């Protein structure tokens, strides 16, 4: 069994028994990266010298019986829109190709405090805008299950690196599905927590009312551990929720008896690959056999979610990305005529096509005369979409459906057709608009490509989401499949 297939407790047992060292874990990570990175291209920047130095310090601590954090010694990848002091953070954009952060994101500090080892920074769609990693301005990450296919996005590097066994776990960010969809495409576990549970401080903002950081892991238990390490109130994030953080791993009891599951008919209708539908129906049978019940429900405003999302997210993005003007950081264009010209040239040279497209859409939707028709309208529709979830959650504990309507698609297949690309997010975007937590877990394959099951919970009820995901995993073998690389 590969080292990174060991469960967290097993890794820690082996470290305790001196059968394994942190240096060996870190070695294994870089060896695997060396071996697989030419095919996968999951990383933008490696942190090798620091990681090896950190490993030595930690092994010393291990020898001396010093204190150890929850994620002690685990090699971690961090999405490249989460700032890390002294470690290049590019957002996969040319604009930030030289950006050396002067502080670390709260989530990165929490990983460090938990004694995880940062292996490097992971590729993504530029500024997290995209669902395939083809919008990285460096190179597209490839799906470890079939390198002709996309890994999903925007946290495509985060998903591919875990699936390829390059790191033990990773952090991603999810605005409209950017953790869950790549997790589904790469056959791993991806959790988007409730909006506000994990601090956004130091996450380069895309759409501030939607962005949320979460873990990508090979099993549900690890997701619970990582969430435990990164969740919690942060005074540096004004949208951080001041809530009690439960013991997430204690919730993994395996007991789902009596759980009431709603299955939205809108998530299994037209446009859903029949193989995906079959995998979801099979998963529901597993839940039935474990004593849970399910019924078809309706989230009637689902068909409006994508339109509302692209207006809202693009509007917020156009405002957030105004900070990239070439004044304080990033790449400044040469020989500008004047200050305004410098803004224009720097932004035009620094941003890729999808980023420009969304800035244009958002600027238009917020501009004088169109604000009410587009932005305000979309905010009102968001209220209706959130209401759909509130209604179903009055009678059900969880909502279950597919994560994405199809398995991964071929690289290049949807480039040039942004609208089709947006429709891949039909099952994840409504959840983001409602702000509730959801996890994607492997539930089958089609032609050798993984399929993800999405389990959606009430706001701040990650424990029920994790418990249900864990019970499913315990009674199936989908999560044990590994890509042949």
């Amino acid at each position, binding site marked *: 069994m590969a080292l990174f297939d060991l469960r967290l407790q097993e890794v820690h047992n082996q470290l305790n028994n001196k059968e394994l060292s942190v240096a060996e874990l870190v070695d294994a990570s870089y060896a695997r990266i060396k071996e697989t990175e030419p095919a996968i291209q999951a990383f933008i920047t490696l942190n090798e010298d620091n990681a090896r130095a950190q490993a030595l310090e930690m092994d010393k601590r291990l020898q001396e019986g010093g204190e150890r954090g929850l994620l002690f010694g685990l090699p971690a990848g961090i999405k490249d829109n989460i700032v890390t002091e002294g470690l290049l953070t590019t957002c996969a954009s040319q604009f930030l190709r030289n950006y050396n952060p002067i502080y670390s994101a709260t989530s990165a500090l929490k990983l460090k405090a938990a004694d995880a080892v940062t292996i490097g920074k992971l590729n993504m769609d530029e500024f997290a805008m995209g669902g395939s990693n083809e919008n990285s301005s460096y190179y597209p990450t490839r799906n470890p299950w079939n390198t002709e296919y996309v890994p999903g996005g925007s946290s495509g590097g985060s998903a591919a690196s875990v699936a390829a066994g390059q790191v033990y776990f990773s952090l991603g960010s999810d605005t409209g599905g950017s953790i869950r969809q790549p997790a589904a495409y790469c056959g791993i576990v991806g959790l988007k927590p409730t*909006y*506000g549970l994990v601090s956004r401080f130091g996450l380069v903002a895309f759409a501030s009312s939607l962005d949320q950081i979460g873990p990508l892991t090979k099993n549900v238990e690890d997701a619970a551990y990582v969430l435990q390490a990164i969740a919690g109130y942060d005074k540096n994030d004004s949208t951080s929720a001041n809530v009690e953080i439960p013991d997430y791993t204690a919730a993994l009891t395996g007991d789902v008896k009596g759980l009431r599951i709603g299955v939205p008919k809108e998530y299994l209708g037209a446009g859903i690959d029949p193989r995906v539908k079959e995998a979801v129906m099979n998963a529901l049978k597993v839940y039935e056999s474990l004593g849970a019940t399910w019924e078809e429900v309706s989230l009637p405003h689902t068909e409006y979610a994508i339109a509302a999302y692209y207006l809202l997210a693009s509007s917020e993005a156009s405002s957030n990305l105004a900070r990239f003007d*070439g004044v*304080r950081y990033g790449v400044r264009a040469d020989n500008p005529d004047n200050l305004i010209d410098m803004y224009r040239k720097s932004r035009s040279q620094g941003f890729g096509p999808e980023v420009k497209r969304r800035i244009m859409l958002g600027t238009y939707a917020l501009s004088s005369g169109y604000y009410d028709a587009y932005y305000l309208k979309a*905010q009102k529709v968001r209220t209706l979409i959130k209401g759909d979830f509130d209604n179903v959650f009055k009678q059900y504990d969880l909502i279950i459906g597919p994560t994405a309507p199809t398995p991964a698609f071929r690289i290049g297949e949807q480039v040039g057709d942004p*609208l089709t690309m947006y429709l891949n997010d039909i099952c994840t975007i409504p959840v983001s608009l409602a702000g509730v937590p959801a996890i994607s877990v492997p539930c089958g394959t089609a032609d050798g490509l993984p399929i993800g099951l999405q389990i959606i919970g009430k706001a701040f009820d990650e424990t029920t989401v994790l418990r249900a995901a864990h019970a499913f995993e315990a009674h199936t073998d989908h999560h044990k499949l590994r890509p042949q690389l």
Partner: protein
Amino acid sequence: MSITLKDVEHVANLARLALTDAEKAQFTDQLNAILKYAEKLNELDTDNVEPTTHVLPITNVLRDDECRESLPIEKVLLNAPDEEDGQIKVPAVLE
């Protein structure tokens, strides 16, 4: 509502983007397609619906009004593309 090339030029100016002619033409087509799709929202009567800006029941988060250390100048200038005398330098603002 349909977007013209002129609209695209106006919005590009607001967004401080200098677009090539090819980009302008492409964005005109693509933004029209996306906005046409977005018109779907008009099927819904939202006259009596409150907008949702974000999902948490929190507003006006203020910190205590106390002095804190500023960032050291070296750190502030670390990523500045141009600097002079401990300040970030930009092209002339006034002609």
